[in-house]
């Protein structure tokens, strides 16, 4: 099953200028439970998907909102010359392709 087919929201945004966070929000507990168990949403799988070291990735399920938060270190501090996404709002794209 594709992740996009069971999510209500897939978004990204800075959490401060040093980190970018990816939020997956599910409409119900079933989708959330399935995603929490998925091999494609582990810390190592996300690190591989984004081409970064696993130590720089945090995956936090948040059951109260049927949501999963993923936090990545930004490769460049927001707004430094060479940055390409000052708000970090377009870094969710790789998640649109994955299966759970």
């Amino acid at each position, binding site marked *: 099953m594709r992740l996009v087919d069971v999510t209500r929201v897939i978004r990204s945004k*800075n959490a401060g200028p040093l980190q970018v*966070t990816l939020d997956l929000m599910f409409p119900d507990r079933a989708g959330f439970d399935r995603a929490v168990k998925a091999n494609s949403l582990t810390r190592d799988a996300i690190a591989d998907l984004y081409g970064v070291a696993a130590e720089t990735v945090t995956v*936090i399920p948040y059951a109260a909102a049927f949501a999963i938060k993923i936090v990545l270190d930004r490769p460049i501090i927001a707004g*430094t*010359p060479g940055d390409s996404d*000052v708000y970090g709002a377009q870094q969710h794209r790789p998640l649109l392709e994955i299966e759970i």
Partner: protein
Amino acid sequence: MSAVARLRDSKASINELRALAGSGQLGYGIPETAFKAGLQRKPHFIGCDMGSVDPGPYYLGAGELATSDTVTIRDLRLVLNGAVRSGIPLLIGTAGTAGAKPHLDYTLELMRRVAREEGLSFKLAVVPADVPRDLLKAAIRAGRTRPLGPIEELNEDTVDRASHIVGQMGVDAFLRALDTNPDVIITGRACDTSVFAAIPLMLGFPIASVIHMSKIIECTSICCVPGGRDAMLATLEGDSFVLESMNPQRAATPLSVAAHSLYEQSDPMLVIEPEGVLSVESARFEAVDERRTRVSGAVWQDTTQKTIKLEGAERCGERAVLCAGSCDPRVIANVDAIIDGVRANVADIIPSTPAAPYELIFHVYGRGAVSLFPRKGSSADAEEIFFLVEAIAQTTDVAKAAAGVTKQFLLHHGFPGRLSTGGNIAFPFTPPELSGGSAYRFSIYHLLEIDDDSALFPVHTEIVK
């Protein structure tokens, strides 16, 4: 008697405290209908946040506001009239986008102008947030600063180079401002929660529900479905609070409010403040009706070491920008080699030297320019690509020179199989090189350990009339 003094005096009779969150970004346009609906509910105070680190280092570095004079004045007029004419306190945090001295001074100038035009008079408490450089250097030497993520350790040179350095004040600074019994408080850089937490804490409401409420309403109606920017009313009942948007089209539901904990936070379970940490893991969200939600159950833990978040920005240089596109499949297929060749040409003509260094940055849209992370399994070539080339140099002249030479060599660069000898790129307008002004970067994003914040965030008062 001032608005704050009146509120303090009536403390015993306040069982439920109504906080009106007027704006999460004052200066971008406060929806007036919802704000006025909020005033009808007789709030005990109005809070507005005016800043954010989101728009990037430019505003802090340059000392400029991200918002226009026209809309900033309009919003100030709305909230000052609303608060002062109702005799209730108004608190505004992070004046002028970034909350350093020029931002605060300019916002104060606009505020005094609005007061004059509207015939409003009030006692104002002002709390600047600029961090004295000698104090910060002493803290570095004492090992009392640390990075707040992947950024270098703070050193004294970085402190000297920064254009502006601010600290994010917490509720302690607001409580000291409230002690002066003002009608209005305006501050430099501040935690958005403190704007809304200070008065409830002054009146003795429990800190866990106060901080949780503040964290949610500082973004006004973003915690609703559909989310929006309309004023939000929170009614503090003690260990619980009820949320209601002042726009009847927006509903604060248990799920929408819980989900707001995710917004721009690196950990949805924790809210870290200078004075302690709020855990919302055990929070309960219950529907009061289809538009209101009651929240309770968060847990507050005082810290053993108070910390202040520091933000600083330094100038990198002057920026010139080149804009051009291509739809030639051969240019698109060879773009990496073309860029390498052009870089070499430009370096021959304008060498980057220690005396006149510059940096040339290629963003090639249609070739993964938006992604911060390496792209996997890149797909077929795009139909069109866009070159956005930044040149950053110490002077505008060198930046424009580098962008101009890049333009000419990109236009005419030869490569194997080239057909497009009239030019490799199309310019959307002339001149295709634009001056981007000064470029800044965040050089400081660190924590500072403090014992007492009164030296960092002094309170001044004035009578505005």
